[in-house]
């Protein structure tokens, strides 16, 4: 019964909308108004009827599906009505309408044209809207309120046996020494002494700790009375004093945070929620996490850019290994794809005659450009990771990486992937070089290669570089081939050469987006911002290069 009422009311709205749109559009058009006003009035009515249909559906207790359906169909119906408002030609018995009928017919055709113009413009509008919403979604996740919970809140750090009652940045330096000494275990303080002041690597700590302060802290500040005391005999206060003396205040506070305060993001909100529902969020956070503080946080920060990966905690993980990995991949990709790609383009444009094998090469390159990237990933897995494992793992050169899932394999795979793009772009650039340039060069007695090297290539260079950079920005964002080739999503140390295992920014984004913990989505958004900035930089370089070279040649 309800459904019947819904259908009935829907058709009723449709009827009104149809009649209303037709009348308003034709009347307006016949009165000599611009056809677009008629179309606008009709469109508004269509929209209105959609809303009415949706409201009617909601009124009758329908949620979800029927509302959208009713709204959509209502609008669609009204638009169709507008579309069909050309009068029937046959009723006049003429091949072409005349007089009053011609006027109506003309008005209707103009309305129709105007409606469609709006619709065409609207499809661009949808694309622009999508782009805006895409960026908003990312920013929305990059900045926002978080609830931070502490193991020991900063105000409850012990000072002279009682909670200090101040935030860390309110404490004087002397108090900071006491706070350090009282709250951090002396062994950890000594570790920071060795790692942060003496800059010693972990494997040297055991060897350094029995040595005297004067030897370990050569050139650093220390009281003369401690000069001959071995590091492992320093007491907590002395070590803390040395730390405060030698390290910047921010680092001392970081040590306290890492060792004692241990802030942990237990919940996060989007930028929009944070702005619009601040009080609600704070109330909710106090109810759920009584010990937590609600503070603003930008997930994209300095620690995120320079920090190591952490597979479990989104709030402390960084992206440095991934940025390094991405850059190394790109370096290898350029190293192989650029010379080979430009070489192939030169061959096809300058040397190749119209023979069957040259045609096959050309057609083949065009087809390779359309092969899905994941197929290249499969190729990389079978050839570079497995078949050439001896080379790509570096075992042939005395490295001992466990398998072929290395930077080199990834770079090779990406190089194969963008090779067709580079070739096609370079071909276009070379084709644009005027023939007179070549003729002049030949006329002066240059050989073909001399002509190409000294005249054609320099002239085509801006185009080639622009095309290459665009191809590279495609490679930077590629994820699927790297998944197949076996890029890791967690590394304990940075990739340090072509034969090390690697990770890349897009891989992390993929991983973090699909992890169950919600906070990793914030990290993913921040990583996306880093990736987009890298792409933007590359594209700006492309534009700059193009402008610079074309000015010089002009």
């Amino acid at each position, binding site marked *: 019964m309800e459904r019947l009422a819904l259908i009935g009311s829907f058709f009723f709205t449709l009827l009104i909308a149809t009649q209303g749109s037709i009348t308003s559009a034709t009347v307006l058009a016949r009165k000599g108004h611009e056809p677009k006003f008629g179309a606008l009035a009709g469109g508004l009515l269509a929209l209105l009827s959609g809303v009415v249909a949706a409201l009617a559906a909601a009124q009758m207790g329908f949620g979800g599906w029927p509302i959208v359906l009713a709204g959509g169909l209502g609008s669609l119906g009204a638009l169709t009505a507008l579309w069909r408002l050309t009068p029937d030609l046959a009723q006049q018995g003429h091949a072409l309408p005349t007089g009053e009928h011609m006027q109506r017919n003309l008005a209707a055709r103009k309305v*129709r044209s105007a409606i469609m113009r709006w619709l065409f413009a609207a499809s661009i509008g949808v694309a622009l809207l999508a782009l805006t919403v895409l960026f908003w*979604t990312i920013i929305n996740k990059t900045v926002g309120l978080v609830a931070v919970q502490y193991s020991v809140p900063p105000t409850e750090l012990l000072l002279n046996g009682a909670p200090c009652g101040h935030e860390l940045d309110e404490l004087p330096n002397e108090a900071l020494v006491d706070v350090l000494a009282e709250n951090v275990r002396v062994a950890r303080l000594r570790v920071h002494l060795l790692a942060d002041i003496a800059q010693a690597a972990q494997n040297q700590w055991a060897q350094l700790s029995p040595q005297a302060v004067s030897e370990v802290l050569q050139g650093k500040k220390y009281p003369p009375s401690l000069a001959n005391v071995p590091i492992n005999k320093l007491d907590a206060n002395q070590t803390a004093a040395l730390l405060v003396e030698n390290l910047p205040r921010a680092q001392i506070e970081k040590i306290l945070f890492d060792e004692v305060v241990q802030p942990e993001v237990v919940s996060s909100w989007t930028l929009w929620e944070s702005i619009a529902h601040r009080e609600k969020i704070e109330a909710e956070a106090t109810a759920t996490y009584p010990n937590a503080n609600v503070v603003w946080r930008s997930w994209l920060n300095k620690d995120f850019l320079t920090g190591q990966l952490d597979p479990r905690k989104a709030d402390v993980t960084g992206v440095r290994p991934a940025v390094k990995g991405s850059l190394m991949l790109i370096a290898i990709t350029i190293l192989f794809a650029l010379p080979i790609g430009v070489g192939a383009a030169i061959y096809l444009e300058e040397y190749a005659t119209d023979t069957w094998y040259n045609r096959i090469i050309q057609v083949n390159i065009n087809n390779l450009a359309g092969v899905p990237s994941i197929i290249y990933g499969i190729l990389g897995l079978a050839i570079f990771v497995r078949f050439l494992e001896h080379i790509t793992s570096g075992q042939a050169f005395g490295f001992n990486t466990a398998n072929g899932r290395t930077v080199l394999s990834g770079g090779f795979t990406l190089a194969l992937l963008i090779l067709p793009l580079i070739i096609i772009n370079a071909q276009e650039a070379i084709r644009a070089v005027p023939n007179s340039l070549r003729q002049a060069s030949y006329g002066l007695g240059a050989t073909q290669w001399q002509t190409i090297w000294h005249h054609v290539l320099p002239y085509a260079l801006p185009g080639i570089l622009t095309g290459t950079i665009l191809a590279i920005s495609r490679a930077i964002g590629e994820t699927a081939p790297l998944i197949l080739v076996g890029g890791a999503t967690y590394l304990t140390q940075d990739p340090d050469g072509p034969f090390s295992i690697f990770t890349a920014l897009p891989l992390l984004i993929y991983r973090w987006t699909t992890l169950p913990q919600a906070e990793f989505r914030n990290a993913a958004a921040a990583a996306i911002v880093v990736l987009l900035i890298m792409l933007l930089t590359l594209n700006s370089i492309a534009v700059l290069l193009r402008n610079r070279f074309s000015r010089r040649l002009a």
Partner: protein
Amino acid sequence: MSQEAIITRTARPALVFGRPQHPPVLTKRARPTETAIQAFLFLCGALSIVTTITIVFVLGRESLHIVTSKYIDASGQVHTIKVWDFFNTLQWQPHRYKVGIAPLVSATMMSSAIAMLVALPLGLGSAIYLSEYASAKTRQIVKPVLEVLAGVPTVVYGFFALQFVTPLLQDLLGHETVEIFNVASAGLVMGIMILPLVASMSEDALSAVPRSLREASHGLGATRLETTLQIVLPAALSGIAAAFIIAISRAVGETMIMAIAAGARPNLALNPFESAWTMTGYIASISGGDLAFDTLDYNSIFAVGLLLFLLTLGLNLLSRQFVARFRAVYE
């Protein structure tokens, strides 16, 4: 015969003032460096052939392994798989030795269809607006923005699908209807991703239609819309068809949006609000991490890859045919 004549004919004449000592060599001089460079450049070009052959070889060989190998499961039972099994069964569970490809293909077709529903009308609409209606200034602004849309990495689109479109669908249609991972959201976003491609290719096709056709139509009293729909569009049809086919090929081969937003289970049901494995999604989600070599899982990647390769290759070749026909008419 005079002394002079003899001198010019002998190969090594005595010294004659003011004349070349021997006749000029008019044959091409051998230049080994030039030849070597040309050979190197040819090899660069031929590398693409090697790549294609390697792709076909690798995909073919590993797929062939499936039908020629005997797989022994944990309980010691031996399984063999025939080519027919790919099309005969309706379940895709390589770990249980069931390799009916139908669920993957149906999900791929469904997601591509949804993407096309978004990309084709919007892309063509944008192209028509840009080529027939927009002023030069509008074009100057809109085209770079569309390029930005085309340049966003697909993994970012995946994030967008999961973070924005899926919650939106869930709010609109109810959480019980729409699963967290669903084909509809992935397909919609994929449509947005492909839109700039359709728009730019179709716009190229529309712009290539000679101006005289439009002017003739306007001269007969047609409105701009009638000119566009009845004159320009039919004239550019093969170019637009090429754009559509390339778009389908892109949709079929798109991986990251599917891997992130469409979920991971073989699903033959044609409900776009359920999760389903597309061919690409299957390859991506199974091969993350340490996939053991020479298992059925490993080999199945290649079989699915082979199908994907042939499918996209066929679509690309078809599209090229359309472009060639289009070029023949107007260039």
